[in-house]
């Protein structure tokens, strides 16, 4: 992963009319997401919220180039994404650390891949491990870590490569409130310095509003699509500790939450209602 390059042209991430369907075992196809339009300019922080199973990870996978949309087009900085999006780094929702590498080797991975010498990569990794509070665990293997520690290692692994686009899938959900706040601050700092584009998935609407320039709401599945897009015009820099008392925050929260609630309950009700249908 090369160091941040000067943004070339167009959006950092641009999904146009993307639909993704999966074959199911019964031979039918299942529409995960439908007609997704997502445009993220360099330097923008966009969050995606939505009910569970609505297709958030699917969208991120398409933006990363790991899934090809069934219909539609994915571009990054004006270039169509074929194969992996080399200008993005992706923190997965699942555990994705290499079990055979120690914490520090896992964090160094991106640098090693880019040809950085081992000594240099390790000293840089140590810096990042410190940021995520894992300095003392550098020599552990992933199975020797707690769930939250593994997540933080993954965060360091994704951040260290200093990419143009940060894709993050529920990065902080396994962390306690305090650690989460520290991580959020780190993320904001990393982003503000650099003009990176961030696409961030979370279940915590507070977090989404506090961090983002824009919050997208994904509708209920199957075949969900973007049902709402909200500009968060709270000025930066923001104080994450006090932002929840900001009247603009409260107003936005109420507005978005109202919309989100509808979608979330829709998902659940549809699942409850379709008795025996299309199992």
């Amino acid at each position, binding site marked *: *992963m090369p160091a941040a390059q000067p943004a070339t042209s167009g959006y950092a991430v641009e999904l146009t009319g993307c639909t993704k369907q999966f074959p199911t075992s019964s031979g039918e196809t299942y529409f995960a997401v439908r007609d997704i339009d997502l445009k993220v300019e360099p330097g923008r922080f966009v969050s995606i919220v939505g009910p569970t199973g609505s297709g958030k990870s699917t969208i991120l996978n398409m933006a990363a180039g790991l899934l090809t949309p069934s219909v539609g087009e994915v571009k990054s900085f004006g270039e169509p994404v074929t194969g992996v999006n080399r200008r993005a780094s992706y923190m997965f929702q699942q555990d994705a650390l290499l079990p055979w*590498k120690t914490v520090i080797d896992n964090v160094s991975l991106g640098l090693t891949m880019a040809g950085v010498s081992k000594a240099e990569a390790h000293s840089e990794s140590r810096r990042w491990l410190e940021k995520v509070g894992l300095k003392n665990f550098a020599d552990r293997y992933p199975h020797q870590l707690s769930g939250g520690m593994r997540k933080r290692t993954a965060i360091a692994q994704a951040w260290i*490569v200093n990419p143009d686009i940060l894709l993050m899938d529920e990065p902080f959900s396994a962390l306690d409130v305090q650690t989460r706040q520290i991580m959020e601050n780190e993320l904001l700092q990393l982003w503000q310095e650099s003009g990176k584009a961030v696409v961030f998935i979370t279940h915590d609407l507070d977090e989404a509003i506090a961090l983002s320039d824009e919050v997208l709401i994904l509708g209920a599945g199957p075949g969900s699509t973007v049902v709402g897009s909200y500009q968060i015009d709270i000025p930066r820099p923001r104080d994450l500790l006090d932002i929840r008392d900001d009247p603009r925050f409260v107003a936005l929260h109420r507005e978005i939450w109202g919309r989100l609630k509808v979608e979330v309950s829709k998902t659940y009700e549809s699942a409850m209602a379709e008795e025996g249908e299309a199992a």
Partner: protein
Amino acid sequence: MRGIQLLLTVIVLGAWEVLGRAGVIDEFFFPLPSDIFQTVWVWVSSGFVFPHLWVTMQEAILAFLVGAAVGLIFGFILARVRFLERLMDPFLQMFNALPRVVLAPIFLLWFGLGIWSKVAFGFTLVFFIVFFNTLEGVKSVDRVLVDNARMLGASEKQLLRHVFIPSALTWIFSSLHISVGFAITGAVVGEYLGASGGMGYAIAQAQGVFDTKGVFAGMFILMIVVLIIDLLVNRLERHLLRWRPVRSS
């Protein structure tokens, strides 16, 4: 553990000795352990066995190394290039089913009477074992790990080094455990079919003159050698797979 193993060995050999002396076991086919050990001792102390052993070891080690290397390379390539895999699979299966002993004359033709025909022989055994296991090993690597490494900028070569090889390592070691034995078998059988030296040659000669003591002595020496090699493979395995959680249950 070693103690129990020794005990077990002693019990089996002791029973064998007693039954042999009592005439229950036919010495013509199963010479007394004491006689076997005596023969082993003579072979070793007279130095008779060492040139033979050296020849066989050369062959087996070459067969093992070449077979494992080619098996690994083929395994990795075919696992990564789905087209090739589907193309080659039936051919490889076919060749795997060829009874190699029948091919002995052709091996002699191609590789001469020296060690290379035996290496080729062992190779055909080792290769398939390592190949099929590597193929499956690479194919069963966790998708998310591969995706993650690719997102971090891994080239195909780096993927191989940092993801596929370590992940397939358990598979590869399983196949290596099997192929250590098969490499030696291959070398010995190769010699057995035509040679002027090597453990297979020594055993064949003993067998040709009804010297079953010699046959068993030869096999016994081979066993010891394999045990030592396997110990080394185990060491290596434990080192390379040290990241795995220790089983406690």
